[in-house]
């Protein structure tokens, strides 16, 4: 690990003031890991974990979750379980109890890819070292993205929480040197394109304060399905967050996002729209799943993900239709 200076922020204002050029430290499960590998080398750490950013608060129209609430706290919260079962399930399907006790909402938003080449300084990686190339393109691609990649990067987005939040259409509230602003969830993570090193729509020094999730009928009837190489404690090969609002035997509204397949949490509004007005049955789910993986580009080791993602989506929609 490289040298860094460490500062414990006394207030949000203190943190934002210190922000530009520094890395914010919350749980550290991602950041400290990548600093040990010398993939991330911030010269200054600003510890925001002691700030009053852990609350989970019900508003008239939604739930506001503090940036530093831990995965365990959010997953166990009664309002989260009642209003957004998909979020609780997604969180509990990720990592291990030890990690969930420490990992935070904002840290999970900023979770970096598990691409083996990104984590290995001996290989080329445009995300880690812009312009150096991408060893994954001709490498072992079992755990790489089939959606949203570019000729410079096919690194998979690893988060489960983010897949649920994408489906739920959360809004991220940030504060920076130029004040506060809200970022729609779909705009927060950037596609790699020509600049895979740019991962988030954050300006220098901006600190995530909270995530707002609007209440919805579909959110209350939502499920998360994750398929992985072992029964627990593994990243997704494919996952799906699905929520349905059903009235008079027809789907009134749908929420759908895929994980384990995209370079960012993969929400496809066209697939959601295709479900509207349909009977909540297999044929409609299969059509939505087909739309959700449209444009996928598979490689040597991950062609199986196409079918796996489709089946995972159908399964999640089926469970959502069955209700809690």
């Amino acid at each position: 690990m490289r040298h860094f200076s460490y500062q414990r922020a006394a207030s949000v204002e203190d943190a934002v003031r210190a922000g530009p050029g520094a890395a914010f430290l919350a749980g550290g499960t991602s950041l400290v890991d990548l600093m040990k590998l010398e993939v991330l080398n911030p010269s200054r750490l600003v510890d925001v974990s002691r700030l009053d950013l852990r609350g989970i608060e019900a508003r008239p129209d939604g739930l506001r979750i503090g940036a530093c609430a831990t995965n365990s706290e959010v997953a166990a919260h009664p309002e989260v379980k009642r209003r957004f079962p998909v979020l609780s399930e997604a969180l509990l399907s990720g990592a291990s109890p030890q990690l969930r006790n420490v990992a935070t909402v904002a840290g999970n938003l900023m979770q970096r890819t598990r691409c083996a080449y990104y984590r290995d300084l001996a290989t080329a990686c445009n995300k880690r070292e812009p312009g150096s190339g991408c060893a994954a393109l001709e490498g072992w691609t079992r755990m790489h993205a089939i959606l949203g990649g570019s000729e410079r990067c096919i690194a998979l987005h690893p988060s489960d929480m983010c897949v649920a939040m994408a489906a739920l259409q959360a809004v991220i509230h940030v504060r920076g040197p130029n004040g506060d602003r809200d970022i729609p969830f779909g705009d927060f993570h950037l596609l790699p394109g020509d600049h895979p090193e740019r991962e988030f729509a954050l300006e220098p020094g901006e600190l995530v304060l909270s995530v707002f999730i609007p209440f919805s009928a579909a959110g209350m009837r939502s499920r998360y399905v994750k398929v992985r190489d072992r029964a627990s404690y593994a990243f997704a090969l494919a996952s799906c967050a699905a929520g349905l609002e059903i009235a008079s035997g027809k789907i009134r509204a749908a929420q759908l996002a895929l994980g384990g397949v995209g370079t960012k949490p993969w929400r496809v509004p066209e697939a959601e729209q295709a479900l509207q007005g349909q009977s909540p049955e297999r044929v409609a789910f299969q059509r939505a799943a087909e739309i959700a993986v449209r444009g996928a580009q598979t490689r040597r080791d991950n062609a199986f993900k196409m079918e796996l993602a489709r089946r995972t989506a159908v399964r999640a929609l089926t469970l959502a239709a069955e209700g809690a």
Partner: protein
Amino acid sequence: MPPNPGRRDVLVGGIASAIGLGLLDGCATVPTAPAAAAPSDLVDLSLEVNGQRRALRIDPRTTLLDLLRENLGLTGAKKGCDMGQCGACTVLVDGQRIDSCLALALQVEGRKVTTIEGLARGEELHPMQAAFIEEDAFQCGYCTPGQILSAVALLAEGVADSDGAIREGMSGNICRCGAYPNICAAVRRLRGRG
């Protein structure tokens, strides 16, 4: 090496010999040893470990695991993967289990840390330690301190209400010997005893 070397002395000596013989030369991706922090870079840290208040001056880069093992000589928490994937380094912080390899020691300033060394009361084993012995829940023993602390926390969390829930709740602790059935039996033995 001391006249009557302990297991750790042998291990440390063994690794040093391996390096001396150039056996690790192929490991091109091992990060170079970090430069020691200048004295001016050291920072103060105060925390409670196994009921004892400790005040230290440390390199800010020190992880909680390294602090316990290297600065405080508490080698019960093990360095398995050192990247949050095995659970051998599990300790309790304010009663909650965490992977100590992924926490900077500075993050636990002022907190209460419990390691395997702090679990027994004098000569009397913690019930979970005793259950692990009764159920023969380990072979090589390397993952065991982490397993036991994780199991203690799992019972406190109150979610181990089925065998499936025990397996899921213990999934953050890998056992390369495969003692899982007996580990689950040890947890099951204590479940419901409050």
